[in-house]
Structure formats: structure tokens, C-alpha cells
């Protein structure tokens, strides 16, 4: 089904390390703890007892129940989905391109999403298409178009056996889309603030609508990447060697990139282009827990979700009752943390 003979694949990749139980437990605990923090903290003070009652079905004040169920809980769930998806997509891109600095926006997904959202905000605010607001749809389409464009361009340049052509095509497409986006943003001064706010990223939820919108894409994308984690390990040995193992590099790369991009486009469409999560989380996991993708993929999902939920909680509590754009928080926390991890880890593991 996935371009690989399944009977031969396990033979090939048997013997690779699997996820240590300790790390799995740590990941789950971190994820649950972050969700708890996200549910308990917010610009409106709601006691822990009330939150627990709300979750267990006890009766609480309707105003607080309204805030919890309509605003806070969907935001925590969305943060987990977006963070987990960006991190696992980052891990997938890093595996496919064998580059620890790859992130889900490498092939232009962010530039495409930004352009789509800018056009929708500037020229069609408030319009809905098939019952969904135009902005996430346009962002999704833009992200998909950018990556597809990068693929087509990369194929004409050097064939898909080489990563470099594809990455360069992605850079070119991203630059091109960025230039159009900047022009539109600057010329439509009336919508400047909304566009800027969207680009910085924000987990504004339309209640649970945002969650339902991204959930199928995230589930599908995560499942595909998860199933390919051993193949990503196999890809580490190099294109030529992998071909001799009977794995079609082109097809694996295509499938993984498409899956990762699909999930990325969906979460970016709803949350904006949140930076840093996709590159920092998988890389940090790699430095701390091991380089195998059987370890990196599942832990990226858990820790990525936890990271973004915590960042979102910070963004809505630090300057409460005002909010900070979440992209500011992820960069502010993520970059120094990453530097600390890098410095305290042996250089040989890089």
C-alpha cells in the first residue's frame, strides 16, 4: 500500500531501537500536566475545584461553565493538536531531508498559508464558503499550492532523488509567495492589523469548530507519519543505500511530505504560522532521547503538544487581560531553551 513491500520492510529495519518506556511515560505525563495547567490557568480566575467539577459533570456556575467549555477547553485541545502536529511534521521533514534544521515550513507551506490568509482577510473578510470561514480555507489552499509548486519545480530541476533541488525549489517558492504577500499586506492598510495578527499566530477558537476542522487532518497525517517512522530511520543511511534495501525513496519521500504538509496546512490554517515548534521540539528530543525516529516521532507529538499548550497558557496569562501573539512566546521560550539543550549535550550527537 505505501509503496513498500511490507513483508520486506520489517526484515530490513528490525533491530532498531524502540521507544523506551521511561521516555514514553515522561512524555505522557508532560502532556497531561500541560493540559492541566492550560485548563486551570487563564485571564479569568476559576478555582481548581470548579474546573474539576466541570470536567466530571458536576454542577457549577453557568457563567464559568460557559467560559470553560466554550473558550478554555477548546483552546487547550486545539493547542495540543496544533503543537503535536507541527512537532511531528517537523520530525518528518527532518527525517525525509536528513537535515536537523528542517521544519514544516521548509517547502513554502508558511509562505503559501500567509498569502492565502492575507488575500482572504484583505479582500473577503467575513465571507464563508461551504459554511467555513474563508480565511482558514484560503490559508490551507495556499499552503498546499506552495508545497505542490515546490515539488513540481524541484522535479523539473534535478529530479526527486536529490533533496537539494527540492529544498531550493521550496526556498524559491517561499520567497515568491512572501513577496506577493508583503505587497498585498502593505497596500491594504485597512486590514494591516488583522493580517499581522494572523501571521504571528493565535489559537482563537470558534468554540470547538476549530478543533473539528483540524482533527481529521491531524489524525490522518499523524497516523501516516507514525507508520513510516522506521522508514525514516532507514532513510538516514543515504539515498543510494536505501534503494538497495528495496525501498522506493521517491515514493516514501512523497508520501511523508504530503502527509506532513497536509497536517501542517490544516493547523496553520486555523492557528496561523506559529514558528519554532516544528524545528525545536523534534531536535531537542533527538538531543535528549536518541536519534531514532521510533523515539523522535512519538515523543515529538507528546512534547510538541505540551509545549504549545504551555506557550498558549502563557500568552493569555502573562499580560492578562490582554493577549500576546503565541509566535512571540514560542520564539522567546524556545530559542534559549534550545541553546541550553545544545550546550549541555555532547557535540558528537549533533
Amino acid at each position: 500500500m505505501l509503496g513498500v513491500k511490507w513483508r520486506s520492510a520489517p526484515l530490513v529495519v528490525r533491530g532498531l531501537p524502540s521507544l523506551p518506556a521511561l521516555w514514553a511515560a515522561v512524555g505522557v505525563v508532560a502532556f497531561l500536566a500541560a493540559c492541566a495547567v492550560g485548563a486551570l490557568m487563564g485571564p479569568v480566575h476559576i478555582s481548581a475545584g470548579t474546573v474539576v467539577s466541570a470536567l466530571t459533570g458536576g454542577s457549577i456556575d453557568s457563567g464559568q461553565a460557559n467560559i470553560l467549555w466554550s473558550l478554555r477547553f477548546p483552546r487547550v485541545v486545539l493547542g495540543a493538536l496544533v503543537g503535536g502536529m507541527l512537532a511531528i511534521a517537523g520530525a518528518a521533514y527532518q527525517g525525509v531531508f536528513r537535515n536537523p534544521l528542517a521544519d514544516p515550513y521548509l517547502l513554502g507551506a508558511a509562505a503559501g498559508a500567509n498569502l492565502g490568509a492575507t488575500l482572504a482577510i484583505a479582500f473577503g473578510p467575513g465571507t464563508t464558503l461551504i459554511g467555513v470561514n474563508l480565511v482558514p480555507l484560503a490559508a490551507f489552499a495556499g499552503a498546499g499550492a506552495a508545497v505542490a509548486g515546490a515539488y513540481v519545480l524541484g522535479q523539473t530541476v534535478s529530479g526527486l532523488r536529490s533533496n537539494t533541488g527540492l529544498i531550493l525549489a521550496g526556498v524559491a517558492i517561499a520567497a515568491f509567495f512572501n513577496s506577493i504577500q508583503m505587497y498585498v499586506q502593505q497596500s491594504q492598510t485597512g486590514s494591516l492589523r488583522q493580517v499581522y495578527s494572523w501571521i504571528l499566530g493565535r489559537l482563537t477558537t470558534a468554540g470547538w469548530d476549530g478543533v473539528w476542522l483540524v482533527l481529521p487532518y491531524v489524525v490522518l497525517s499523524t497516523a501516516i507519519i507514525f507508520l513510516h517512522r522506521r522508514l525514516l530511520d532507514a532513510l538516514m543511511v543515504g539515498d543510494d543505500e536505501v534503494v538497495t534495501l528495496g525501498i522506493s525513496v521517491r515514493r516514501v519521500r512523497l508520501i511523508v511530505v504530503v502527509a506532513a504538509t497536509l497536517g501542517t496546512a490544516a493547523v496553520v490554517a486555523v492557528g496561523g504560522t506559529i514558528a519554532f515548534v516544528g524545528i525545536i521540539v523534534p531536535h531537542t528530543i533527538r538531543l535528549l532521547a536518541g536519534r531514532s525516529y521510533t523515539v523522535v516521532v512519538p515523543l515529538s507529538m507528546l512534547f510538541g503538544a505540551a509545549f504549545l499548550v504551555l506557550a498558549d497558557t502563557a500568552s493569555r496569562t502573562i499580560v492578562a487581560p490582554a493577549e500576546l501573539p503565541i509566535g512571540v512566546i514560542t520564539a522567546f521560550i524556545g530559542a534559549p531553551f534550545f541553546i541550553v539543550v545544545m550546550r549541555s549535550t555532547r557535540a558528537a550527537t549533533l
Partner: protein
Amino acid sequence: MRTHEHKAGAKPAALVPSVVVVALLFLSACASSPATSSASPGTRFPVSIAQPGGTTVTIAQRPRRIVSLSPTATEMLFAIGADSQVVAVDDQSNYPASAPKTKLSGFQPNIEAIAGYTPDLVIAAEDTGGLVHGIQALHLPILIEPAARNLDDSYLQIAQLGAATGHATEAATLVAKMRSRVGAFVASVAKPARPLRIYHELDNTYYSVTSATFIGQIYKLLGLTNIADAATGAAPDYPQLSAEYIVSSNPDLIVLADTKCCAQDIGTVGSRPGWSGIAAVKSGAVIGVDDDIASRWGPRVIDFMQAVAPRVQQLEKAA
């Protein structure tokens, strides 16, 4: 009006033109001059206008080719009767409709393009992109009339524009009219023991205004409590509020300034999850105002108060 000076010891024949001139002056002083067609009596040129930063700008003579890069300044100019002196306004100056709108931008000013209109006075709201430096290099006067922080700033700007264009009297009349209308609105609303809470929305990502802004000052005059004031620490004037906070603050009145930009109205606000329980939504006290009127600080503030004050009065009676 200009008085012509004559040299002492002029020949008798030269007295004829001076007699004619004096006669004309006498006649025009007796006739009542329509306020809008010529410079008002009492406006002398050259005139010095104070500018932000403590500098002054001197306007040597009555400007005939004004370029306005500020929508608010455009509204003020047309309201004080300087419309015949305005040759170009920027692309955002959409009121009044008769203003000579061009593609000039107040955000990204192009000095050459501005110079192409051979202005003798340029008015802008901010000095972006080296605008002041560029216009001064052309030896032209430029006035910066920045966003007003309160009504007094607005009145001062109208007076400045009146002096700068030779319409000081009309400007003073306009200011007096605005003061009296504002006073009437303020008097019409009671100051209840529990002030009404207001949430002013700038766009659908919950940007709001604090009392440190022009619009915020209007709300303060009307005796309302602005829920965004709690966020002054984060951003002194335009904070982005959290939805949780807005819902839990339970505003009594919501004013939407994003009806044009973001297509928001009472229906869309009511359908936001968690918002249906807000007092303002339940009582239908969600007012949409024209985005432009809510973002400018000119004479149309009266229109803004006309939209808001009666509703406040109504809510206070019902409370």
C-alpha cells in the same frame, strides 16, 4: 485683506489708483463678505503653527493648493470651508465624497508624487518615510496633525487648520458647535451609581481601545467604564483582549468598529461561542458604527456620539 503701502511723496497722478483702492476697501468693509468665499477677516498671513516636538511651521500666504494625506485632516478642511483650496487628498480620504481623492498614500508617502501636485501646503497625520524631511527639502510647509488623544486636541487641530488656511472664523464656529453638541450629549446621559460597562471592538481578533485613546475619552465623557482599561499595562492604547476576559467582564454595551473591515454585526457577535450570555448580547445592546467614523478624530465625532449616546441613555433608563 491686504493694504497697499504707498511711498511718501507720490505724484498727484499716482494718487488716483490709491483713491480707487481705498474706495474699494471701504466698500468691501461695509459689505458682508460670505464666510466661505474669501479669507475671513482677522486671518493674517504669514501665520505660525505650533507642531509636535516644539517646532513651528510658518505659512507665508494663504494656501491655494493643499495636499492632505490624512483622512481626518481632509474632513476638517472641508468642514471649515477650505474645500476650494484642496487639490489632492490621499487614497484613504473617503469623506466627503467630493474630496479630490488620488492614489497618494499617507502610509507610504511618495515625495515626488506629492510634489507633482505643486502643493503650497502639505498636511499629514504622521511623519513616515521621511515625509517631513522630504517636503521641507522642497521648501514647502508641512503640517503634522497626529491622532488626537482627546477632544481638546481635536479642537486645537481644527483651529490650527483654520489659521493655516485662512478660515479661522469658520474653524472657531465649528469648534463652538462641536462643543455645544458634545455638551448636550454628555448632559443627556445620567451618571448612574453603577457605571455601564462598555467593550469597543476594533476587529474580530478582539483588539480594543483604552481610555488613553480619543474614542476611549468619549466613552469616559459619557460616564462609561471601559473593560479594556484593565489591560493598560500590556498596551497603553490598543490592547488585544482575551475572549475569556471579555465574556467574564459581561459588558452592558458593545460597540463594533469592525462592521466594514471584518463584517461583524450583532448576529455574528451573538453566535460567537460563549458570547450569548453577555448582558449586551442578551439585551441587544450591540451597536455597529462606521469603521471610519470610529477611527478618526474630526467633526464626525458628533455622528459617533449620535450613534452611541442615545443608546447609553436608553440602557441607563432600563437599568
